[in-house]
């Protein structure tokens, strides 16, 4: 972005102020996440930087809130984490299976009523969560699934499938159908063709859709608030309760763990996207 030597002063000024604005926006986006890191190692109970921390005094830092998160008495995080992972994993599997099948159908050129069906399938993404929450709660209450893991998993499948449908459909747009025809002509049955030819090629799309579904479920709080009982508490619910009652440093320790997790997910999603684009021959 170096400017040519002949640039007039006013454009030079404009260019640097533009870069300055961009820098401010990037800081605005990313800085809030980094506030949490140091404060979660605070030795004191307050959520402000103590004098000791400002002077980088080692005594001002401690792992006490991480210990509290893991070993704390009557502390809900263990159960919440277990529930969150179980629910998210099953919801992801469900979303991947249903979403991939539907995406395969949708990207067939013979698919009738494509527009309206696509709109229906991705509607949980467009409808505000609060409304989805109310509707799903009514269904689960009638079906006797409120306050059960099954109910929450089903709810998260509803919310997660649109992502899988969208990513897999996108992967399939560049898909060369002649390879599946070649497999069929060589005597492979449809299931075998799918497992050996189609699936490996669309796998990056499937996994990145699955990651979206996982994060959606893992981070979901509105619908779970309606559905969960005490037994089904999840990490977001515990955070929500904690943030409403009292902001404690233990929450920051949990938040730090979640940021680490999201970084891992971001890296894998990014790698997958690149692999997928390479496979589909799209170069950017």
């Amino acid at each position, binding site marked *: *972005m170096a400017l040519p030597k002949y640039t007039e002063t006013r454009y030079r000024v404009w260019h640097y102020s*533009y*870069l300055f604005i*961009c820098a401010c*926006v990037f800081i605005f*986006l990313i800085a*809030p*996440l980094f*506030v*949490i890191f140091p*404060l979660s190692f605070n030795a004191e109970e307050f*959520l*402000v*930087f103590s004098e000791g921390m400002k002077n980088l005094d080692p005594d001002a830092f401690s792992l006490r809130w991480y210990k509290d998160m893991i070993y704390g008495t009557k502390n809900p995080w263990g159960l919440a984490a277990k529930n969150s992972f179980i629910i998210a994993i099953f919801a992801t599997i469900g979303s991947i299976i*249903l*979403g991939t099948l*539907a995406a395969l*159908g*949708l990207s*067939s050129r*013979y*698919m*009738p009523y494509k527009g309206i*069906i*696509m709109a*229906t*399938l*991705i509607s949980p993404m*467009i*409808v*505000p*969560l*609060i*409304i989805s929450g*109310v*509707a*799903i709660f*009514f*269904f689960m209450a009638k079906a006797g699934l409120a306050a059960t893991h099954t109910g929450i998993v089903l709810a998260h*499948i*509803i919310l997660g*499938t649109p992502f899988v449908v*969208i990513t897999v459909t996108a992967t399939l747009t560049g898909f060369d159908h002649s390879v599946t025809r070649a497999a069929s002509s060589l005597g492979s049955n449809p299931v075998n063709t799918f497992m050996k030819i189609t699936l490996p090629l669309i796998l990056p799309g499937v996994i*990145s859709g699955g990651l*979206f579904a996982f994060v959606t479920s893992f*981070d979901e709080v509105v619908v779970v*608030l*309606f559905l969960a009982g005490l037994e089904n508490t999840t990490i*977001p619910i515990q*955070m*929500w309760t904690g*943030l*409403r009652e009292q902001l404690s440093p233990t*929450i920051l320790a949990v*938040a730090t763990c*979640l940021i680490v997790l*999201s970084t891992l997910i*971001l890296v894998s*999603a990014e790698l997958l996207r690149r692999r997928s684009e390479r496979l589909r021959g799209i170069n*950017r």
Partner: protein
Amino acid sequence: MSSETQQILTTDGIPLSVSLKKAERKNKIKAFLLVVPLLLFLIITYILPIGDMFMRSIDDKMVTNMLPKTFTAMEKWDGKEMPPEEVFAGFYSDFKILVQNKEHGKLAQRLNKEKNGFNSIIKKLFRQVQRNKIDEGRSIKEQIMKVHKRWRDVEYWQAIKRTAPPYTTAKYLKGMDMYYGPDGNIMQVDEDRRIHRILWLRTLEIAFFVTLFSFLMGYPIAHLLATLPMKYSNLLMICVLLPFWTSLLVRTASWMILLQQQGIVNDFFVMIGLVADDNRPEMMYNKVGTYVAMTQILLPFMVLPLYSVMKTISPSLMRAGKSLGGTPFVAFWKIYFPLTIPGIGAGCLLVFILAIGYYITPALVGGASGTLISNQIAYHMKTTLDWSFASAMGLMLLTGVLVVYWVYNKLVGVDNIKLG
């Protein structure tokens, strides 16, 4: 031509066109079958329950089912004078059943909502019925009218008659701070009690400004990301994607830390001398907190569609504009900006739709003046348990979102949604 094509036969001796149609139908069914599991699942667990919400929001069958004989008798009543003996007799026999099933309290509650004063007179009637004070041999009308003077007031009987229809739009009117007056026409709630209208307007206002702020902040950085060489832009892209993948509650928590009175933002303001140390402004639990936190949380949804559109715009277009004598500003305004309009439409409508239904962040950092219509829906779902009212407001919100979505579809097309 047509006779020639008809003569083409497959090896089975079937005309080719017939065989082709058959194969195509088979393919259609095959494609459709793949979609069926998800479609059925969503219809049962999601689409039909939204329909159920609608039924609940207009449902008013409770009294209809409680007082069947009363309403049959009322069909002949003109509704102006005191009702005839049959209405009283019907009401009495319905009421006896309610007393047996201990449901008269529910009736009193519902009728009291229709007109104040029902609670006490139903209690009085209940005691009379319980003690078998009412003699079925004599005129029931006169005996009921003696129980309390309000039973002699025709307005109370008119109120009962108004509860007869099994469906009502009252909940929708309530959502707009209106109600049915005594003679059935639509009335406005007193000005100082119009809370819902304030909430609707505030929701629209916050959604609009959050969209505007996201656009103003998102456009420059999307442009920078799209024009920088790959190795730099990938690094900066992390600044957009990491918040995008991070838990909403984590991001809200960090804003709660930053914006508190002893927080870093206030510290900074004090340091540069913008505010006095003993006069730190309240930046959380009000609209400021809602705006700041929601803008940061929704900004990636603006940047990503803008970026994916800007990435496709060739830099040579701008160079061509400049070489033809346009200043950089003219070249930008006349060439670059119009080409990014699809991205602007996608980003703005995505952010707007998300913002209009926001719940968690406003509830945590919004305080009383930063809450939105979604908070009200959750409040009625969880606290007052007025589910039909929550459903009605939810559907009003949904209608708004669908209108916006329809516009989005017309302008950009749903298929153009891109994720990352």
